[in-house]
């Protein structure tokens, strides 16, 4: 682990001349250090991953990809409505971090681009697809839709649609872990666009002040809708954002699942010792922001250059190059995943619509709450 080094020295030296006199201000120098987890640096053995783990990782990333490809198709068929934000291209982040977490103990929360994480945490394709279809058997009983996947069992605290608003909530989930002393940590994923909400700033300060076991992971996919990071950030090196809160910051390569996994291992370890931290993971979304976005704000060349470093193909190449798997085995996995996804579509299609009376369920825990009926 490399917590940020932060030295503060007052050094008397000329730093200011505005023509009025030669008497000048001193200068205070501060040096910061951030960890960087470049792509291609780490091998699976460095991360303590077994070959069986690798197979599951590969399967999991493929599942996210195929699930969303199929969702897009179902959206076209109007089986799915509302917003559908695809995670395609970012799968190394969800899968890579899942392998650094203690599932069932640790907690995860994210924004609305949440399908990948849900599947990485072990939620079933069935319950996820059924949610997209707005059906009774959906992971949120059809009440939440694409942006609002939840699983109490998997400790997946959702799926949130108001940009930035889940960040303080993450601090609170971590607060409860610490209060209860249950050893869990909370990982909070957020987009590069969410950094400029005040909620981010407040949550980071609180997390640092109270020493909460939380990791703020910025999934920097370069764009917030059509706005590139450098058009929204006065300083686009988002990993530095933690420095104002004496919080260690680091940068990882989101196209390399090992870079992500290793960075997350370090940060989860810090969190378990009570040190919150910030991790920027650079990635790229291949699709538009949502289904209605033609993506005119970027060039095809830019998009293609990122597709060339596709995290799934990269892992595939690794597995083949290292001769850990035969190509046939990987092909079988792909087939299995495709079948699973197709079955989930069937499952969703057969799942009933929620009954109309259910509109009053789940508003309150109180069963007999007297709603205003007029």
């Amino acid at each position, binding site marked *: 682990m490399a917590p940020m080094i932060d030295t503060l020295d007052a050094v008397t030296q000329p730093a200011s001349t505005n023509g009025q006199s030669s008497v000048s201000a001193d200068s205070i120098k501060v040096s910061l250090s951030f960890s960087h987890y470049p792509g291609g640096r780490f091998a699976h053995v460095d991360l303590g991953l077994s070959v069986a783990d690798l197979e599951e990782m590969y399967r999991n990333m493929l599942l996210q990809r195929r699930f969303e490809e199929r969702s897009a198709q179902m959206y076209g068929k109007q089986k799915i409505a509302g917003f559908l934000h695809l995670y395609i291209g970012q799968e190394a982040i969800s899968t890579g971090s899942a392998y650094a977490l203690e599932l069932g103990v640790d907690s995860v929360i994210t924004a609305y681009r949440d399908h990948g994480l849900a599947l990485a945490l072990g939620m079933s394709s069935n319950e996820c697809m059924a949610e997209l279809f707005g059906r009774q058997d959906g992971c949120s009983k059809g*009440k939440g839709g694409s942006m609002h996947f939840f699983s109490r069992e998997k400790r997946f605290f959702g799926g949130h649609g108001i940009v930035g608003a889940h960040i303080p909530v993450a601090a609170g989930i971590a607060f409860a872990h610490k209060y209860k002393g249950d050893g869990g940590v909370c990982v909070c994923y957020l987009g590069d666009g969410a950094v400029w909400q005040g909620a981010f700033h407040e949550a980071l300060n609180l997390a640092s002040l109270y020493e909460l076991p939380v990791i703020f992971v910025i999934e920097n996919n370069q764009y*917030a809708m*059509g706005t590139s990071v450098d058009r929204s950030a006065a300083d686009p090196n988002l990993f530095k954002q933690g420095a104002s809160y004496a919080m260690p910051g680091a940068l990882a390569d989101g196209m390399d699942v090992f870079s992500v996994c290793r960075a997350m291992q370090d940060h989860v370890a810090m969190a378990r010792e009570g040190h919150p931290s910030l991790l920027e993971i650079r990635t790229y979304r291949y699709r538009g922001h949502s289904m209605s976005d033609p993506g005119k704000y970027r060039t095809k060349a830019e998009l293609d250059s990122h597709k060339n470093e596709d995290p799934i193909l990269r892992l595939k190449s690794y597995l083949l190059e290292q001769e850990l798997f035969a190509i046939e085995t990987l092909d079988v996995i792909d087939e299995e995943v495709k079948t699973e996804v197709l079955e989930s579509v069937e499952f969703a299609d057969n799942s009933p619509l929620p009954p109309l009376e259910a509109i009053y369920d789940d508003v309150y825990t109180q069963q007999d709450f007297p709603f205003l009926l007029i």
Partner: protein
Amino acid sequence: MATLQLREAIRDAMVEEMDRDSNVFLMGEEVADYNGAYKVSEGMLERFGERRVIDTPISENGFAGLGLGAAMNGLRPIIEFMTWNFAFVAMDQIVNNAAKIRYMSGGQFSFPIVFRGPNGAAGQLAATHNTTVEALYSCFPGLKVISVSNPDDAKGLLKSAIRDNDPVVFLESEFMYGMRGEVSEAEDYLISMGQARIAQEGDAVTIIGHNKSYWRALEAAAMLADDGYQAEVIDPRTIRPFDWEAVIRSVKKTNRCVVVDESNPFASVAAEVAFQIQHRAFDWLDAPVRRVTAKDTPAPYARNLMDHYLPGAEDVYRACREVMYL
């Protein structure tokens, strides 16, 4: 008359006012480069340049406040919220700063600013993306609140709002942006705030509805017409100030009233309208004022639940028949 989409009418209003007054500028998320999340501001960056059509980071509280400071210091900002659901993080700026600073400064600083964007139900987006905010802002003295149902009103009222020296909350609708309608081509088409539009005259019942609810009101009126009853349909258009005279005049004629309001029911605009009617036209009322609103729940995602959630024309029709004791 030109036939325009609602989004085009809104754009035309902004473009005309920006042509007219160089202190008017547009700021918001994705309004410039992306041409607007809902294409309302399409072409405006090209026309006015980066100085006057300005993209922001996702910082609603920040840029709402920035707009207010700019207004205090002589400009006339139009601040777009991608939707009003996202303005809750900026609510403090609107209800404490925009609504109150003029008063607290003894009238020294005013806020010629328009906050605009779509509001209300927007489909299967679930609970946080379907809030109806008229009542939440209208209760604050210092603000003016407009909610439009059609392109012509949108153009005339937005132009007035931009010229107004007080802060205006201007409410549109994602669902209606593509809706076409006739729009006046008068040189300087201004509609005054505080004037309801009597969309259809009648004597059997008064139906009041703004924004999308206006269309539910009209549909219900058509169903009543099939039954042989002529409903009076009123679109208040501005919620603060509200044209009480128009409504009271109508109720004194029809003796019954149904208010359609897409909002959750508690302390809604519909509640205020009912209060005023029973207060000002008590002796004329032959039946209690009814309201038809969204259910008293958050908005659900599932299609069937969402349909059930919203007030439909059929519900309005039934409510009308009830107050007509049919």
